[in-house]
Protein backbone atom coordinates (compact mmCIF):
# COMPACT_ATOMS: atom_id res chain seq x y z
CA UNK A 1 0.00 0.00 0.00
CA UNK A 2 1.51 3.30 -0.96
CA UNK A 3 0.66 6.70 -2.39
CA UNK A 4 1.22 6.48 -6.11
CA UNK A 5 0.12 9.88 -7.31
CA UNK A 6 -1.04 13.36 -6.25
CA UNK A 7 -2.76 15.85 -8.58
CA UNK A 8 -3.47 19.45 -7.64
CA UNK A 9 -5.55 21.87 -9.63
CA UNK A 10 -6.65 25.28 -8.37
CA UNK A 11 -5.32 24.43 -4.90
CA UNK A 12 -3.40 27.32 -3.27
CA UNK A 13 -0.40 28.23 -5.45
CA UNK A 14 -1.11 25.46 -8.02
CA UNK A 15 -3.64 27.05 -10.41
CA UNK A 16 -2.97 24.70 -13.30
CA UNK A 17 -2.89 20.92 -13.05
CA UNK A 18 0.27 19.66 -11.32
CA UNK A 19 1.02 15.98 -11.01
CA UNK A 20 3.44 14.23 -8.64
CA UNK A 21 4.17 10.52 -9.02
CA UNK A 22 5.54 8.60 -6.03
CA UNK A 23 7.22 5.24 -5.72
CA UNK A 24 7.20 3.37 -2.42
CA UNK A 25 10.51 4.75 -1.18
CA UNK A 26 11.70 8.12 0.10
CA UNK A 27 10.56 11.09 -1.98
CA UNK A 28 12.28 14.40 -1.23
CA UNK A 29 10.71 17.72 -2.23
CA UNK A 30 12.91 20.81 -2.46
CA UNK A 31 12.68 24.42 -3.61
CA UNK A 32 13.07 28.03 -2.44
CA UNK A 33 11.02 29.69 0.32
CA UNK A 34 7.43 30.32 -0.63
CA UNK A 35 7.48 28.20 -3.79
CA UNK A 36 4.68 25.82 -2.69
CA UNK A 37 6.19 22.82 -0.86
CA UNK A 38 4.06 23.11 2.29
CA UNK A 39 1.05 23.75 0.05
CA UNK A 40 1.64 20.22 -1.29
CA UNK A 41 1.58 18.91 2.29
CA UNK A 42 -1.65 20.88 2.92
CA UNK A 43 -3.23 19.31 -0.17
CA UNK A 44 -2.56 15.80 1.15
CA UNK A 45 -4.17 16.67 4.51
CA UNK A 46 -7.09 18.29 2.71
CA UNK A 47 -7.89 15.48 0.30
CA UNK A 48 -7.84 13.03 3.23
CA UNK A 49 -10.66 15.00 4.82
CA UNK A 50 -8.99 17.61 7.02
CA UNK A 51 -11.72 19.96 8.23
CA UNK A 52 -9.68 22.03 10.69
CA UNK A 53 -8.99 25.15 8.65
CA UNK A 54 -6.33 26.37 11.07
CA UNK A 55 -4.23 23.28 10.26
CA UNK A 56 -4.41 24.36 6.61
CA UNK A 57 -3.10 27.83 7.56
CA UNK A 58 -6.36 29.61 6.75
CA UNK A 59 -9.35 31.26 8.41
CA UNK A 60 -11.94 29.86 6.04
CA UNK A 61 -11.90 26.75 3.86
CA UNK A 62 -12.37 28.95 0.80
CA UNK A 63 -8.76 30.08 1.23
CA UNK A 64 -7.45 26.84 -0.23
CA UNK A 65 -8.71 27.91 -3.66
CA UNK A 66 -6.16 29.71 -5.85
CA UNK A 67 -6.75 33.38 -5.06
CA UNK A 68 -4.90 34.87 -8.02
CA UNK A 69 -1.69 36.86 -8.46
CA UNK A 70 -0.96 40.27 -9.96
CA UNK A 71 -0.93 38.53 -13.35
CA UNK A 72 -3.69 35.93 -12.94
CA UNK A 73 -7.29 36.00 -11.82
CA UNK A 74 -8.53 33.88 -8.89
CA UNK A 75 -10.07 30.52 -9.78
CA UNK A 76 -13.49 29.24 -8.79
CA UNK A 77 -12.60 25.74 -7.64
CA UNK A 78 -9.86 23.72 -5.97
CA UNK A 79 -9.44 20.01 -6.72
CA UNK A 80 -7.00 17.48 -5.33
CA UNK A 81 -6.79 13.78 -6.23
CA UNK A 82 -4.73 11.24 -4.34
CA UNK A 83 -4.18 7.78 -5.74
CA UNK A 84 -3.24 4.73 -3.68
CA UNK A 85 -1.77 1.48 -4.89
CA UNK A 86 -4.06 -0.90 -3.03
CA UNK A 87 -2.69 -4.23 -4.22
CA UNK A 88 -2.21 -5.23 -0.59
CA UNK A 89 -5.95 -4.79 0.00
CA UNK A 90 -5.46 -2.52 3.01
CA UNK A 91 -8.39 -0.37 1.89
CA UNK A 92 -11.62 -2.35 2.12
CA UNK A 93 -12.61 -1.71 -1.48
CA UNK A 94 -12.30 -4.03 -4.45
CA UNK A 95 -9.83 -2.04 -6.50
CA UNK A 96 -6.05 -2.25 -6.98
CA UNK A 97 -5.87 1.49 -7.58
CA UNK A 98 -7.96 3.77 -5.37
CA UNK A 99 -8.46 7.40 -6.31
CA UNK A 100 -9.78 9.86 -3.71
CA UNK A 101 -10.84 13.28 -5.01
CA UNK A 102 -12.00 16.37 -3.18
CA UNK A 103 -13.35 19.57 -4.75
CA UNK A 104 -14.35 22.89 -3.24
CA UNK A 105 -16.18 25.68 -5.11
CA UNK A 106 -16.19 29.34 -4.06
CA UNK A 107 -19.91 28.96 -3.42
CA UNK A 108 -18.91 26.75 -0.52
CA UNK A 109 -20.15 23.63 -2.27
CA UNK A 110 -17.98 20.53 -1.87
CA UNK A 111 -17.72 17.36 -3.91
CA UNK A 112 -16.05 14.07 -3.02
CA UNK A 113 -15.30 11.24 -5.41
CA UNK A 114 -14.07 7.68 -4.99
CA UNK A 115 -12.61 6.31 -8.23
CA UNK A 116 -14.38 9.15 -10.03
CA UNK A 117 -17.78 8.22 -8.58
CA UNK A 118 -19.46 10.93 -6.48
CA UNK A 119 -19.69 9.97 -2.83
CA UNK A 120 -19.98 11.63 0.58
CA UNK A 121 -17.09 12.74 2.80
CA UNK A 122 -18.30 10.03 5.16
CA UNK A 123 -17.55 7.32 2.58
CA UNK A 124 -13.96 8.48 2.35
CA UNK A 125 -13.41 8.78 6.09
CA UNK A 126 -14.97 5.34 6.63
CA UNK A 127 -12.73 3.83 3.99
CA UNK A 128 -9.55 5.09 5.60
CA UNK A 129 -10.69 4.56 9.19
CA UNK A 130 -8.48 2.04 11.01
CA UNK A 131 -5.93 1.94 8.21
CA UNK A 132 -3.81 4.58 9.94
CA UNK A 133 -4.32 6.79 6.89
CA UNK A 134 -5.56 10.29 7.62
CA UNK A 135 -4.47 13.82 8.40
CA UNK A 136 -3.05 12.82 11.80
CA UNK A 137 -0.41 14.93 13.47
CA UNK A 138 1.93 11.93 13.54
CA UNK A 139 1.65 10.95 9.89
CA UNK A 140 1.57 14.39 8.30
CA UNK A 141 4.14 16.19 10.38
CA UNK A 142 3.91 19.99 10.04
CA UNK A 143 6.67 22.56 9.78
CA UNK A 144 6.12 23.97 13.26
CA UNK A 145 5.13 20.85 15.13
CA UNK A 146 7.92 20.89 17.73
CA UNK A 147 6.38 23.55 19.92
CA UNK A 148 2.89 22.09 19.58
CA UNK A 149 4.04 18.68 20.84
CA UNK A 150 6.22 19.89 23.68
CA UNK A 151 3.72 22.61 24.44
CA UNK A 152 3.18 23.40 28.07
CA UNK A 153 -0.54 23.42 27.32
CA UNK A 154 -0.98 19.74 28.00
CA UNK A 155 -4.38 19.64 26.20
CA UNK A 156 -2.56 19.87 22.88
CA UNK A 157 -0.41 16.98 23.94
CA UNK A 158 -3.37 14.90 25.06
CA UNK A 159 -5.15 15.48 21.76
CA UNK A 160 -2.13 14.05 19.96
CA UNK A 161 -2.16 10.89 22.09
CA UNK A 162 -5.86 10.45 21.46
CA UNK A 163 -5.36 10.61 17.70
CA UNK A 164 -3.09 7.59 17.98
CA UNK A 165 -5.46 5.67 20.28
Amino acid at each position, binding site marked *: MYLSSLKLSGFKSFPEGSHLKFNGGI*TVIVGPNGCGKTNIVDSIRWVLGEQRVSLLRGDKMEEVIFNGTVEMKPLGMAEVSLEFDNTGGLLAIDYDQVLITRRLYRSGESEYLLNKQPCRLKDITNLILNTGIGPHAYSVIQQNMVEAILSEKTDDRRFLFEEAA
Partner: protein
Amino acid sequence: AAEKFLTTFELIRQNFKNVFKEIFEGGEADILLSDINDPLECPIEISVSPRGKKIFSLAQLSGGERALISITLLFGMYFVKPSPFCVLDEVDAPLDDINLQRFLKVLKKFATNTQFIIITHNKLTMNAGNTLYGVTMERPGVSKLVSVRLEEISDKDLALTRT
Protein backbone atom coordinates in the same frame (compact mmCIF):
# COMPACT_ATOMS: atom_id res chain seq x y z
CA ALA B 1 -12.29 3.77 27.04
CA ALA B 2 -9.78 4.16 29.84
CA GLU B 3 -8.66 0.58 29.15
CA LYS B 4 -8.06 1.29 25.52
CA PHE B 5 -6.22 4.52 26.26
CA LEU B 6 -3.95 2.85 28.81
CA THR B 7 -3.09 0.08 26.36
CA THR B 8 -2.30 2.55 23.59
CA PHE B 9 -0.37 4.74 25.98
CA GLU B 10 1.85 1.84 27.01
CA LEU B 11 2.49 0.98 23.35
CA ILE B 12 3.41 4.59 22.55
CA ARG B 13 5.67 4.62 25.59
CA GLN B 14 7.57 1.50 24.49
CA ASN B 15 7.91 2.75 20.94
CA PHE B 16 9.05 6.15 22.18
CA LYS B 17 11.78 4.54 24.29
CA ASN B 18 12.89 2.32 21.40
CA VAL B 19 13.06 5.12 18.83
CA PHE B 20 14.83 7.29 21.40
CA LYS B 21 17.56 4.67 21.85
CA GLU B 22 18.13 4.58 18.10
CA ILE B 23 18.25 8.33 17.57
CA PHE B 24 19.94 9.52 20.76
CA GLU B 25 22.42 6.67 21.21
CA GLY B 26 22.22 6.68 24.99
CA GLY B 27 20.42 8.73 27.60
CA GLU B 28 17.02 8.24 29.20
CA ALA B 29 13.50 9.00 28.05
CA ASP B 30 10.02 8.30 29.36
CA ILE B 31 6.42 9.45 29.18
CA LEU B 32 4.13 9.18 32.20
CA LEU B 33 0.52 9.72 33.11
CA SER B 34 0.72 12.13 36.00
CA ASP B 35 -2.31 10.51 37.64
CA ILE B 36 -2.82 6.83 36.89
CA ASN B 37 -6.31 7.00 38.43
CA ASP B 38 -7.43 9.64 35.98
CA PRO B 39 -5.94 8.42 32.72
CA LEU B 40 -8.34 10.20 30.40
CA GLU B 41 -7.87 13.67 31.84
CA CYS B 42 -4.56 14.00 33.63
CA PRO B 43 -1.56 15.76 32.08
CA ILE B 44 0.90 13.58 30.17
CA GLU B 45 4.49 14.19 31.20
CA ILE B 46 7.57 13.78 29.04
CA SER B 47 10.95 13.40 30.73
CA VAL B 48 14.18 13.17 28.78
CA SER B 49 17.88 13.26 29.64
CA PRO B 50 20.44 13.05 26.84
CA ARG B 51 23.45 10.95 27.80
CA GLY B 52 25.36 12.35 30.77
CA LYS B 53 23.11 15.38 31.31
CA LYS B 54 20.80 16.13 34.22
CA ILE B 55 17.61 17.70 32.89
CA PHE B 56 14.93 19.10 35.19
CA SER B 57 12.50 20.36 32.59
CA LEU B 58 12.12 20.11 28.83
CA ALA B 59 12.42 23.90 28.58
CA GLN B 60 16.08 23.59 29.53
CA LEU B 61 16.81 21.57 26.41
CA SER B 62 18.11 23.25 23.28
CA GLY B 63 16.14 23.96 20.10
CA GLY B 64 17.73 21.02 18.32
CA GLU B 65 17.28 18.63 21.26
CA ARG B 66 13.59 19.55 21.52
CA ALA B 67 13.06 19.01 17.79
CA LEU B 68 14.68 15.60 18.02
CA ILE B 69 12.54 14.58 21.02
CA SER B 70 9.43 15.78 19.29
CA ILE B 71 10.18 13.72 16.17
CA THR B 72 11.01 10.73 18.40
CA LEU B 73 7.62 10.97 20.10
CA LEU B 74 5.80 11.37 16.79
CA PHE B 75 7.56 8.30 15.42
CA GLY B 76 6.68 6.47 18.64
CA MET B 77 2.99 7.22 18.03
CA TYR B 78 3.33 6.50 14.37
CA PHE B 79 4.41 2.91 14.99
CA VAL B 80 1.39 2.22 17.18
CA LYS B 81 -0.95 2.94 14.31
CA PRO B 82 1.28 3.12 11.23
CA SER B 83 0.01 4.77 8.15
CA PRO B 84 1.44 3.40 4.90
CA PHE B 85 3.02 6.79 4.38
CA CYS B 86 4.46 9.62 6.47
CA VAL B 87 4.94 13.22 5.35
CA LEU B 88 7.68 15.29 7.04
CA ASP B 89 7.81 19.03 6.47
CA GLU B 90 11.27 20.47 7.20
CA VAL B 91 11.62 18.62 10.53
CA ASP B 92 15.40 18.59 9.97
CA ALA B 93 15.78 22.39 10.05
CA PRO B 94 17.13 22.77 13.63
CA LEU B 95 19.39 19.69 13.53
CA ASP B 96 23.18 19.82 13.33
CA ASP B 97 24.98 17.51 10.88
CA ILE B 98 25.58 14.71 13.38
CA ASN B 99 21.99 14.58 14.64
CA LEU B 100 20.77 14.82 11.06
CA GLN B 101 22.77 11.78 10.07
CA ARG B 102 21.39 9.80 13.02
CA PHE B 103 17.87 10.85 12.08
CA LEU B 104 18.40 9.87 8.43
CA LYS B 105 19.82 6.48 9.43
CA VAL B 106 16.69 5.76 11.48
CA LEU B 107 14.50 7.05 8.67
CA LYS B 108 16.07 4.76 6.07
CA LYS B 109 15.59 1.84 8.41
CA PHE B 110 11.86 2.65 8.79
CA ALA B 111 11.57 3.29 5.05
CA THR B 112 11.62 -0.44 4.34
CA ASN B 113 8.00 -0.54 5.58
CA THR B 114 6.86 3.05 5.25
CA GLN B 115 6.78 5.46 2.34
CA PHE B 116 8.24 8.84 3.30
CA ILE B 117 7.64 12.19 1.63
CA ILE B 118 10.10 14.73 2.99
CA ILE B 119 10.31 18.48 2.46
CA THR B 120 13.77 19.88 3.10
CA HIS B 121 16.37 22.56 2.33
CA ASN B 122 19.19 20.27 3.47
CA LYS B 123 21.63 18.57 1.07
CA LEU B 124 22.20 15.55 3.32
CA THR B 125 18.45 14.85 3.42
CA MET B 126 18.20 15.25 -0.36
CA ASN B 127 20.84 12.57 -0.72
CA ALA B 128 18.76 10.16 1.36
CA GLY B 129 15.88 10.17 -1.10
CA ASN B 130 15.35 7.95 -4.13
CA THR B 131 13.00 10.37 -5.89
CA LEU B 132 13.56 14.11 -5.93
CA TYR B 133 11.00 16.73 -6.92
CA GLY B 134 11.75 20.42 -7.23
CA VAL B 135 9.13 23.12 -6.85
CA THR B 136 9.80 26.50 -8.42
CA MET B 137 7.90 29.72 -8.97
CA GLU B 138 9.02 31.19 -12.29
CA ARG B 139 5.79 33.18 -12.50
CA PRO B 140 5.24 34.91 -9.16
CA GLY B 141 2.66 33.10 -7.07
CA VAL B 142 2.40 30.14 -9.47
CA SER B 143 4.05 26.89 -8.37
CA LYS B 144 5.58 24.59 -10.93
CA LEU B 145 6.89 21.07 -10.42
CA VAL B 146 10.15 19.89 -11.95
CA SER B 147 11.80 16.54 -11.45
CA VAL B 148 15.42 16.88 -10.45
CA ARG B 149 18.56 14.82 -10.87
CA LEU B 150 20.68 14.64 -7.74
CA GLU B 151 23.92 15.53 -9.55
CA GLU B 152 22.35 18.82 -10.51
CA ILE B 153 22.02 19.88 -6.87
CA SER B 154 25.07 22.06 -6.42
CA ASP B 155 25.74 24.30 -3.46
CA LYS B 156 22.81 26.39 -4.54
CA ASP B 157 19.69 24.34 -3.63
CA LEU B 158 17.88 26.52 -6.14
CA ALA B 159 19.77 25.42 -9.22
CA LEU B 160 16.85 23.16 -10.14
CA THR B 161 16.82 22.23 -13.79
CA ARG B 162 14.17 20.21 -15.51
CA THR B 163 15.10 16.75 -16.73
